[in-house]
């Protein structure tokens, strides 16, 4: 009998694929956001509005993870941007190798984008653990889901750089305490940004668009600075 001490990450294979993706997104100057929320919180609706607003200024593309149907990717294509569905066949999250494979199969259609929008499988738990090579995770929480969710599902709210509170047009009809949610998120993740939006009415959406455009500009500046710092 032999005993071997190792200390290998269970998700090492995913981490390695994610590193490769991150390097390739850096080379192409593509901002990548990974949207995570429960089903029905409005990820696709937010992205449809984003596509319609930003497609004239930026080259956008989408990857949509779901158990079944290509409905979400079709909705993004209908909103005017290239998008591919990734069917997980029952798995509760996207992993980096699925992103690699989907981008390889799409080829030029999803190459050299300004912003790649990844819509994860609707689930507040499992997708949190899988690095997809993104610049940051975005958690969505709709006001109809209840204002206790950040403390009930802490991992995603602790790791998402941005939380978008969606369906703000329904606030008058539900008991959803915005301040309570903001203070829970601040306790879990002091540097997180919190946006309150309604993709349906457009309320608050300018801040979301500005966040994407500023993040893209910051990434490109950082890449240019890093390239200039490398001795010839």
């Amino acid at each position, binding site marked *: *009998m032999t*005993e071997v*001490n190792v200390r290998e990450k*269970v998700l090492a294979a995913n981490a390695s694929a994610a590193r490769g993706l991150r390097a390739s997104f850096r080379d192409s100057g593509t901002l990548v956001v990974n949207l995570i929320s429960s089903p029905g919180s409005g990820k696709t609706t937010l992205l449809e509005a984003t596509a319609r607003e930003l497609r004239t200024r930026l080259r956008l593309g989408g990857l949509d993870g779901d158990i079944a149907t290509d409905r979400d990717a079709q909705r993004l294509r209908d909103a005017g941007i290239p998008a591919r569905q990734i069917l997980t066949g029952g798995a509760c999250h996207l992993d980096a190798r699925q992103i690699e494979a989907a981008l390889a199969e799409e080829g030029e259609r999803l190459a050299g984008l300004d912003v790649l929008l990844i819509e994860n499988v609707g689930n507040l738990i499992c997708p949190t*653990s899988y690095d997809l090579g993104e610049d940051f995770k975005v958690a969505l929480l709709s006001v109809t889901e209840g204002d206790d969710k950040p403390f009930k599902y*802490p991992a995603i709210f*602790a790791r998402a750089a941005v939380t978008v509170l969606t369906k703000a047009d329904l606030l008058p009809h539900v008991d959803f305490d915005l301040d309570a949610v903001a203070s829970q998120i601040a306790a879990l993740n002091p540097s997180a940004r919190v946006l309150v939006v309604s993709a349906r009415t457009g309320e608050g959406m300018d801040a979301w668009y500005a966040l994407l455009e500023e993040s893209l500009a910051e990434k490109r500046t950082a890449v240019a600075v890093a390239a200039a710092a490398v001795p010839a």
Partner: protein
Amino acid sequence: MHETGLAIEIHRIARAVADERGGGALESVTVAVGDLAAVEPPLLEFAWRAVVEGSADAGAALIVEWERARQDCASCGEIAERAPGSWLRLCPRCGEPLRVTGGDALDVLRVVFGDGASGRERGAA
């Protein structure tokens, strides 16, 4: 519920460790699971049994070592109290937000395996 995918990865990693050394069937695999890894040990153990069943490693044990996140309050120092099944968010003494570090481990720590075919031949020779 992504424990099945994790169990498959754990088996792949452990098998690679044993194969590199000419080892045989796995006896046990020890993994570290952190508070914040979003993994339920009983579900992981159940998935592990399903993954190794029917393979040469059937019956190999999965041993889970739980790694806790550390909670620190800027005023009161390290806080040992826990919320059920997770960590606290606010200091129970002064109410300030706690800084949480660590607890994200999801690592294969130790692999124990029997002699492989080549090992047994050497032993018999």
